[in-house]
C-alpha cells in the first residue's frame, strides 16, 4: 500500500511539473529552417525557435527521429510547409508528440502554405507513373520572397493569437521585416534584371517559384520525372535539348549527387551550380534574406561565367 501511495505521489508530481505554465516565450518548432528563420524574424525575443530539417538535407526524406519527437512534444506552435512535403515523416512525430496543442486542427498547428501562391497544381488524373507528384502543388513555394512575406504575415497573426499581449510587438517586427525584404527585393531584381529570360536546367523541380520570380526559364530537369533518378536516355535527350537552345547552367540542390549534372555540364560546355534551396543550404544562407542574397549572387556570377564562354 505504501508503495502504491508513493507511486501516486510521484505521478502527481510529474503531472504538476508538466502542467506548470511554460516560460513567457512561445516555443516554436518549424519543420524547415526557412520557416524557422521567418518565425525568428517576426517573433524576435518573444519566441524560441527550433527548425527540424536542415537546409542541406532533402526535405522529402527526413528521418522522424525521437529527438524530433522531444522538440515537437514541447512546442506551443508547430509550423509546417504542408502540401505533402513532409508526408513521409511528420505524421509519426505529431502522433508520438503527446502534445494536444499541435495536432492538425489544433490551435498550435500552422500550415504555412495556407495563404501563399502555389505553382504547378496538377490537374487531371494523377498516377505515381508520373513520379513523386504533389497533388496539392509544388511545395517549394518559400523560394519566392513574396511568399516569404505572406508566410511571415501568417506566422505573425498566429503568434498574436497565441500571445495576445505581444501582438503589437509582432506587428512591429513584421513591419520591419517587410521593409527589409522590400529593400532586398529591389536589390535582387536589379541584380537579376539583365539575365531575365535566360534558359537554365535544374535537377529537381525545387525552383519554380524562384525562377518565375526572377524571370529565368527552366527548360528541363536532370530527373526524368520528379523523384526518379537520372536515366541515360533522358540525359542524352536533355544534353541535345540544351545544346539546341544554348543552355549552359545546371542548378543542383546540395543533397543530390552531382555526377550526372557534371557530365551534362561537360558535354554542353556549361557549369553546375549548387544553390541553397533553404536557409542553411550553404554556409552563407544564414537567414531568409541571406538565402536569396546567396542564391541571387551565385546565379548571376555563374551566368556571367557561362555566358562569357
Amino acid at each position, binding site marked *: 500500500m505504501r508503495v502504491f501511495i508513493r507511486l501516486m505521489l510521484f505521478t502527481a508530481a510529474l503531472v504538476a511539473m508538466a502542467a506548470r505554465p511554460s516560460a513567457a516565450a512561445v516555443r516554436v518548432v518549424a519543420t524547415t529552417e526557412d520557416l524557422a528563420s521567418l518565425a525568428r524574424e517576426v517573433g524576435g525575443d518573444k519566441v524560441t525557435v527550433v527548425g527540424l530539417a536542415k537546409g542541406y538535407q532533402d526535405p522529402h*526524406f527526413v528521418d522522424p*527521429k525521437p529527438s524530433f519527437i522531444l522538440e515537437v512534444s514541447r512546442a506551443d506552435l508547430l509550423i509546417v510547409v504542408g502540401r505533402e512535403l513532409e508526408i*513521409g515523416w511528420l*505524421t509519426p512525430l505529431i502522433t508520438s508528440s*503527446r502534445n494536444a496543442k499541435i495536432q492538425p486542427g489544433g490551435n498550435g498547428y500552422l500550415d504555412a502554405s495556407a495563404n501563399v501562391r502555389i505553382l504547378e497544381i496538377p490537374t487531371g488524373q494523377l498516377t505515381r507513373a508520373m513520379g513523386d507528384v504533389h497533388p496539392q*502543388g509544388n511545395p517549394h513555394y518559400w523560394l519566392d520572397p513574396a511568399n516569404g512575406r505572406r508566410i511571415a504575415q501568417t506566422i505573425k497573426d498566429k503568434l498574436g493569437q497565441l500571445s495576445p499581449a505581444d501582438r503589437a510587438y509582432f506587428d512591429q517586427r513584421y513591419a520591419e521585416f517587410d521593409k527589409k525584404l522590400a529593400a532586398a*527585393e529591389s536589390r535582387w531584381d536589379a541584380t537579376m534584371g539583365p539575365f531575365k529570360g535566360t534558359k537554365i536546367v535544374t535537377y529537381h523541380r525545387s525552383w519554380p517559384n524562384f525562377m518565375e520570380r526572377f524571370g529565368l526559364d527552366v527548360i528541363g530537369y536532370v530527373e526524368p520525372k520528379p523523384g526518379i533518378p537520372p536515366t541515360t536516355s533522358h540525359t542524352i535527350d536533355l544534353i541535345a535539348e540544351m545544346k539546341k537552345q544554348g543552355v549552359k547552367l545546371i542548378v543542383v540542390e546540395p543533397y543530390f*549527387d552531382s555526377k550526372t549534372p557534371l557530365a551534362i555540364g561537360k558535354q554542353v560546355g556549361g557549369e553546375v551550380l549548387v544553390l541553397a534551396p533553404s536557409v542553411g543550404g550553404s554556409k552563407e544562407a544564414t537567414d531568409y534574406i541571406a538565402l536569396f542574397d546567396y542564391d541571387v549572387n551565385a546565379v548571376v556570377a555563374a551566368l556571367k561565367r557561362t555566358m562569357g564562354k
Partner: protein
Amino acid sequence: MKPFRLAQACLASVCLLAIPATSVAQTADQALRQEIDQLKADLETLRKQYEDRLSALEVRLAEAKEPPASAVPAPAPDTSAPATALQTSAAAAGSSKVFNPDISVLGNFAGAAGKNPFSEEPSLSLTEVETAFQAVVDPYARGDFFLSAGPEGLEVEEGYVTFTALPAGVLLKAGKMREQFGKVNAMHTHILPWVDRPLVSRNLFGGDEGVADAGLSVSKLIPNGFMFVDAIGEVYRGDSDVFRGSSRSDLHYLGRIRGYRDLTEGTNLDIGGSYASGPSATVPDFNTERIGMDVTFRYRPLRRAIYRQFIGRTEIMWSRQKLAAGSQENASGFYASGDYQFARRWFVGARGDRSGRALDSDLHDSGAAIHLTFRPSEFSLVRGQYRRTNYADGTDANEFLFQINFAIGAHGAHPF
C-alpha cells in the same frame, strides 16, 4: 401485420402523389410553356453577357502577354492567394470523401528455393496483402487499421485507436496491436530489412508473423536533459502463439523502456529493454516470461541521405518457461545485422542468427543470411536473400529466398 401496413402506407402515398398530378396537368402545361420561354430568353441574355465578358478578357489577356513596360514584374497579386484557399475549401465542401481515411494496399510476393524440411515457405506465394486505413478520428484521437490477407485468410493484423490529446504527456493506444517487445516484433512484414524474420523471433517470440494481440498500451516520455526516454506499459488478453490466457483474469503484461540519443546529426543510438510475462500458450496453466535487449545504430549523412545509410541492429532475447512446479526451461537467442545503402536504390545486408528453443534449451539453431535489395522507388522493392540454417538436429539448409514488395495508394510514413 407490419409489412401489410407498410404496403398500405406506400399505396396511399403513391395515390396522393398521382391525384394532384393528373388534375392539374392541363393548367400546368400552359404555365410550363411560359416558364420555358422565359428560361430560353434568360439563357440567351446570359450567353450574350458571357460572350461579352469573354471577349473583354481575351483582349486583356492579349495586352498582358505583351512585354511589360518596366523590367521588374509586379509581385504576384495577393488575390491569387485566397484563390488557392478557396479552391481547397470548395473541394472540401463539395464532397464528404475528404474525410475518407488514407488507404493503401501493400502486396508481398515471396518465393523460396532449396531444401529445408523445417520451413513451410512455399516456392511461390502472395504471402500477404495488407490494406491500411488511417485517419484522424476527432480532435482527441487517430485510428489505424491494418487488414492482412494471406494464405490463411483475412485477419486484422492491427486495429487501434491512439489518444493523442491526453494530459500529462501520456499516449494511450487501445485495440489489437503488434506488441512493442524489442524492434523486430513491432515491424510489419513489409518493413523488415529481410525476407524472413530472424531465428530468435521465430523460435522465441511468435513464429513467422510475430505477436499481435488485443490490449492497451500506455506510454510516457520521461523528461531528462540527456536523451529521449520512452516508458511503455502494455496489457494484453493473451491470444497468441506465445501467451494464451484461459480465463479473463489471465492477462499478460509487457513493459518496455526505450532510450534514444543523437550522437551527431547523422548518427544515432537507439537502445531498449523489454519484459513480457503471461500465461504460456505452449504449456497450459504455467507462466512464461520473455526478456529482451535491443540496440540499433544508425548512420545517415544528411547531405547524402538519399544515397547512403547504415543500420546496425542486434536483439538478444531470453525465455523462461515454467514446465512444472519447480522446473523451468531457460532459453536464449540473438541476431545481429547490418544493412548498408550503397546507391540511391541499392541496399546490401547480412544477418547472423542463433537461438535456443523455448521448450528445450539444449537445442540450438543457428544461421546466417545475406541479402541484396533493389528499390526502384519508395513504393516497391525487389529482394534476394541467401539463407543458411543449421538446425539443432544436425540438418543444414541452404535456401534462396526472394520477395517483391509493392504498395499503392496513400503515401505512408517512412519507416525508422
